[in-house]
C-alpha cells in the first residue's frame, strides 16, 4: 500500500543531539498515533529519519535528499537558526514544507516554512513585563546574558529597545555574550553578582544556549545567587535541560515558554502519558518544542485533509487559518505570516525539575515575524494569504527580495 512520507530532520549526533533527539522521537510518536487513527487521506504515514549530525551544510544536503530522493510530503525539523537558514533555499527551490518548532529570533517569514515555536514577542517581551511587575519583583536593573549568535543578539536588541522605552537607563542594562559551549562561568557570574548588588532590584534575562546552561546554573548555585536576590529568566531552559541539573539550588529561577509539562489540562496529561509510554520511561519529560511539533503536525494533517492532497503547494495555501487546540488550553491558529498564536507562561523552577507557572497571558499572542522594536523591520509585514509576501514594506508598498 502506498504511504505518505514525512521527513524528520533532527540531529541525532553531535552537539545538538542533546536537544533534537527528543523531537525526532516525538515526531515518531505523533506519526504512529496518526497511523493508529487511520493515517491521512486513507494512507499510512511513513517517517523518514535522517541524521544531519549538527552539521549545517549537512542539513541542506539531507533536506535535499529527503525531498528529492525520498519524496517526502513535508519535513519536521531543525533547531538552531543556522540549520534553518541552511535548509531554507532548499525548501524554496524544491517547493516543500518545513515545520520549525523552536523559539527563534524572528525576522523571517518564508512561504515554505511554518514557525510553530515562539517569536520574540511571544516569549521575551512578556517575560520582561512580568519581571518588571510587582509580582515579578519589580526589577529595575537588567543583565542580558547570551550566547554570541543571532538569536540572543536579536532578542537582546529587541529587549534593549523595549526596556529603554519603559524608562530603563543605559547604565542599568548590562549586555554580555559568551561563546557556544562556554563552561567556565566564574567571572561572568561574579560580574552579575556585582552588577546586582548596586541597590536596585536586578534580574537576568538569559538567552544562553544549549550545553552552556548547565555549568551556568551550577555556578549560580555555587556562588549562592538565589532567585530571591537576582532572578534569572531563561528562554532556552526547559524540562529537558533541567533533567540534567540538580534543581534544588535553582528554585525560583524562571523560564518563559508557551508550554510547561506541569500545566494541568486533560490534553496535556494524556499527551504526557502517551509520551512516557512511548519512551517506556515513566520519568520522560515533555517540553515546549515538542508541543510545537504536536501543534504543527496536527495542523499539517488538517491542512492535508482540507486540501485533499499532500501536494505542498496546496497544503501551504490551506494551512493559514487552520486551528489546533493547544495542550495547555486555548486554540492555536496558523496566521497568514506562518506563525501561530500562543499563550505565554512564566514558570518558576521547582525542586523536582518542573516549573510552577506563576504568570500567564490572558489571551493568545499572535506571533510577529517582524519585530516592531527594530529599526529595519518595523515597517515590514508578512502575509502569505492576501499579500503573498513575507516581507511587504508598508511604507514603500512593495514586496522586498526576489
Amino acid at each position, binding site marked *: 500500500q502506498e504511504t505518505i512520507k514525512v521527513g524528520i530532520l533532527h540531529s541525532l549526533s553531535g552537539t545538538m543531539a542533546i536537544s533534537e533527539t527528543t523531537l525526532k522521537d516525538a515526531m515518531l510518536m505523533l506519526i504512529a498515533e496518526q497511523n493508529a487513527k487511520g493515517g491521512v487521506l486513507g494512507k499510512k504515514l511513513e517517517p523518514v529519519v535522517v541524521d544531519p549530525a549538527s552539521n549545517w551544510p549537512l542539513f541542506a544536503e539531507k533536506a535535499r535528499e529527503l525531498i528529492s530522493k525520498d519524496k517526502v510530503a513535508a519535513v519536521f525539523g531543525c533547531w538552531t537558526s543556522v540549520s534553518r537558514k541552511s535548509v531554507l533555499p532548499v525548501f524554496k527551490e524544491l517547493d516543500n514544507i518545513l515545520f520549525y518548532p523552536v523559539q527563534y529570533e524572528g525576522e523571517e517569514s518564508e512561504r515554505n516554512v511554518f514557525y510553530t515555536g515562539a517569536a520574540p514577542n511571544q516569549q521575551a517581551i512578556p517575560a520582561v513585563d512580568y519581571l518588571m511587575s510587582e509580582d515579578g519583583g519589580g526589577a529595575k536593573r537588567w543583565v542580558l546574558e547570551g550566547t554570541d549568535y543571532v538569536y540572543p543578539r536579536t532578542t537582546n536588541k529587541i529587549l534593549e529597545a523595549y526596556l529603554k522605552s519603559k524608562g530603563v537607563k543605559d547604565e542599568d542594562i548590562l549586555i554580555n555574550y559568551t561563546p557556544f559551549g562556554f563552561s567556565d562561568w566564574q567571572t561572568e557570574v561574579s560580574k552579575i553578582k556585582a552588577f546586582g548588588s548596586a541597590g536596585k532590584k536586578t534580574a537576568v534575562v538569559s538567552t544562553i544556549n544549549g550545553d552552556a546552561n548547565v555549568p551556568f546554573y551550577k555556578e549560580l548555585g555555587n556562588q549562592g545567587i538565589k532567585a530571591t536576590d537576582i532572578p534569572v529568566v531563561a528562554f532556552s531552559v526547559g524540562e529537558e535541560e533541567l*533533567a540534567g541539573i*540538580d534543581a534544588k539550588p535553582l528554585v525560583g529561577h524562571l523560564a518563559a515558554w508557551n508550554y510547561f509539562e506541569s500545566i494541568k489540562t486533560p490534553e496535556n496529561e494524556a499527551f504526557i502519558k502517551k509520551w512516557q509510554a512511548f519512551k517506556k520511561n515513566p520519568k520522560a519529560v515533555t517540553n515546549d518544542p515538542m508541543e510545537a511539533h504536536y501543534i504543527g503536525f496536527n495542523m499539517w494533517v488538517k491542512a492535508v485533509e482540507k486540501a485533499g492532497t499532500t501536494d505542498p503547494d496546496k497544503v501551504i495555501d490551506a494551512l493559514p487559518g487552520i486551528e489546533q487546540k493547544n495542550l495547555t488550553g486555548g486554540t492555536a491558529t496558523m496566521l497568514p505570516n506562518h506563525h501561530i498564536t500562543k499563550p505565554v507562561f512564566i514558570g518558576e523552577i521547582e525542586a523536582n525539575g518542573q516549573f510552577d507557572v506563576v504568570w500567564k497571558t490572558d489571551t493568545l499572542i499572535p506571533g510577529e515575524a517582524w519585530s516592531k522594536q527594530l529599526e529595519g523591520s518595523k515597517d515590514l509585514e508578512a502575509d502569505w494569504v492576501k499579500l503573498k509576501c513575507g516581507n511587504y514594506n508598508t511604507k514603500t508598498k512593495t514586496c522586498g527580495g526576489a
Partner: protein
Amino acid sequence: MLRLLTLLVLLLAAPALAQAPDPYGQLAGDGYAEIEAGVSGLAASGDLRADAILSALSDGRLLVRPADRTLLIRQGGTLVDARTGAAAADSPDLKPVRANNRVRRAIEAARGQLDLASPDPGKRRIAADAVFKARDAAALPALDAALARETSAPVRQALTEARAAVLLARPGTAETDRIAAIPAIQARGDGDAMGILRGLAADPSEAVRNAAARGIAAIETRLAILGALQNVWYGISLGSVLLLAAIGLAITFGVMGVINMAHGEMVMLGAYTTYGVQEVIRTQAPSLFGWSLAISIPCAFLVAGLVGVLIERFIIRFLYGRPLETLLATFGVSLALQQGVRSIFGPTNREVGAPAFMSGAFDFYGLSITWGRMWIIAFALAVFLGLLFVLRRTSFGLKTRAVTQNRRMAAAMGIRTPYVDALTFGLGSGIAGIAGVALSQIDNVSPNLGQGYIIDSFLVVVFGGVGNLWGTLVAALTLGVVNKLAEPYVGAVLAKIGLLVFIILFIQKRPRGLFALKGRAVES
C-alpha cells in the same frame, strides 16, 4: 528565655499594626501580593506559630481548604490547623499555598526578623544578613533588641551593618544618625555596601553626601584589589580544571606518544561512572550520598582504565611506531564511544548531584571562594603529585619511560613491554576517568562532555612541553590565570582568542613548549 524576649519585643511592636488585616486570611488569598502581605503581617503580628507556618509555606506544606479558606499544615502524615494547631481531616480538594519569588523574599525577610532572637549564632547572623538585604524599617526594634544582648562579635557586626542599612533606607532618619551609619556600611566594604552608599548621592544633606563619597572611594580601592585577587583565584580554578582534563593526556600522549583523540571520551566515561554510582547510591543507600564522589573516584579510574586497557590491547598496540595512525584509530574509537554512551544513556544530560561539602561558598577575607572549586583544585594537585610520584619514583614509572623511549630495547632488557604498554595506557585513561568525576561537578554530563576538553587538553600538554609533567602543570595554571585576568576586560571570546594567539606566538619562541628539555637527548 530568649523566646519570651522575642515575644516581648514583638508584642511591643504589635500595637502599631493592630489595625492590620488578618494575616491568615491573606495567606489563604489568591494573588501573590496578598500572600506576601500575609507573610509580613504574620511576622509582625508576633504570632508564636509564625515560624512553623512560614517554614511550611516555603516547603510547600501549607495548604488551604477552598471551602472555608482555612489554612492547614501538613506534618508528616498528619494535617493540623495552622491557626489552632488542632488536627484536621484530609480532603482531596486541598490546595497548597503557592509561593513565588516575591513571597519567598517576604518569607526570608520575615524569618530574618524572627531569627534575630535565635539561640544559634549562625542563624542570627543569617537573619542579620536577611534584614540587611530587606532593609525593612519594621525590623528596627527587633534589631535594637538583638544588638543590646548580642555577645558574638561577628554577629554583632552583622547586626550593626543591618541596622545602619535600615536606618539609611528609612525615610526620616535624622542627619546625624545617617552620618553615623555610614562608617558601619563602609566597613562592610562589598558591592552591597557600595550600592547603599551610591544611593545616598541624592541625599539632601551635604555632610551625608560627602561621607558617602568618602566611603565609596574607600570601598572602590578595596574592591579593585579584591577583584584582581578574585580573578587570579578564578584563573587558578580554571587552570585546575584544565590540568585535570590534560593530565591523563600527558601520559597517553605526552609519555606514550599516542595521539589520543579518545581522551575526552575517557573523561566522559568517568563522569558517567559518577552518575551511575550516584544512581545506585540514590536507590540503594541514600545515606551514603555524601560519599558518592569518593566512591566514584576508584570506580571511574577502573572503568576508564579498563576501557583504556582494552583499547590498547585491541588497537593501539598494533600501531606503535606509527603514531600518526593512532590519531585515526582513536578518532574512530572516540566516535564509537560517544555514540555508545548516547545509545545507552540517551543524548540528554544526566544529573550528577553535588554532595554538601561541594556546594556553597565561603568568604575568605572578602574573596568569595566556592567549596566545589576549592576541592577541585586540591584534587587536581593531588592527582598531579600522585602521578608524578608514580612516574618518577616507582619501578613501574621507570619501565614506562623506558618502554616509551625505546620499545625494542626495553624488551631486550627484559621488560614485558605489552604489559607495561597496557598498564600505562590504562593509567592515563584511568586518570582521565578521575578527571571526569571532578568535571561532572561543573559541566554537563552528556555524550559530548569530552569534546569540550580535547582541544584545550592538547594545547595544555603541548604548551607545557610534551612529556614534561611539570610543564603540564605550569601550562594549565598559566593558561587559566591569563584567561581569567583578560576576561573581565575583553570578554570571554576575545580572551580565548587572545590566548590562542599567545600560544601560537609563544611556540615560535620556544618551539618545544614551556619546559622544553634541552640538549642532545631530545634532538632528532
